[in-house]
């Protein structure tokens, strides 16, 4: 049975635009060749990392949502691991809420990086007593 997954990988910033596209195409093909089905894709471009990974401070982020057999995930991660261009990756199975959220987000393609979640209902800020926090530290 096919299950829906979401995978994000970070490529080294030393790649040129074409090399980066090529690496992305490789993983895209890998999914399709293994009876997978790409549901959506997002290219976040070159982003700053919150901490350095392999002495790099930036990286190309790429996200793919796909449907595949559960066995395929291990294969995909093995390929990530073997590929020197990939500095970090994350793959996880999506539950029904995650799928619903992704579909809703896909419906509004204008803001790919900016999530839709906050626009309909503004979430109030957490009200935290500053004194309590001081105690915690």
């Amino acid at each position, binding site marked *: 049975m096919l299950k829906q997954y979401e995978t*994000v990988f*970070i490529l080294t910033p030393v790649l040129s635009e074409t090399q980066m596209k090529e690496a992305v195409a490789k993983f895209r093909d890998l999914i399709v060749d293994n009876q997978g089905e790409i549901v959506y894709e997002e290219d976040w471009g070159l982003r700053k*990392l*919150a*901490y350095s*990974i392999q002495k790099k401070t930036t*990286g190309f*982020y790429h*996200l793919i949502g796909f449907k595949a057999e559960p066995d395929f995930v291990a294969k995909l991660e093995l390929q990530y691991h073997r590929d020197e261009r990939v500095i*970090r990756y*994350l793959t*996880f199975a999506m*539950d029904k*809420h*995650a799928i*619903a*959220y992704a579909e809703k987000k896909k419906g509004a393609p204008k803001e790919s990086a900016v*999530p839709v*979640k*906050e626009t309909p*209902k503004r*979430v*109030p*800020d*957490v*009200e*935290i*007593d500053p004194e*309590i*926090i001081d105690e*915690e*530290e």
Partner: protein
Amino acid sequence: MATPNEIRFLNPPTVEVKKKKYCRFKKAGIKYVDYKDAEFLKRFLNEQGKILPRRLTGTSLKFQRKVAQAVKRARHLALLPYVTDLLK
């Protein structure tokens, strides 16, 4: 003898009006916590990037688990730092 009305305090006793905390996810009807939205997740972190307890944020247990999961995914993908000073 002093009747209760006449009792005066040197320092007026501070009466704290406690605000009821609530789970913002339940209130806003959010079902899924997105790990990609680092700015949103920062509301659940302290300045060192640690996850705040439910006791402070009022998040329900169900969503606290989801928040924790999302924060950990974001950290793995370098969207949020593992350790830092002066986050925010």
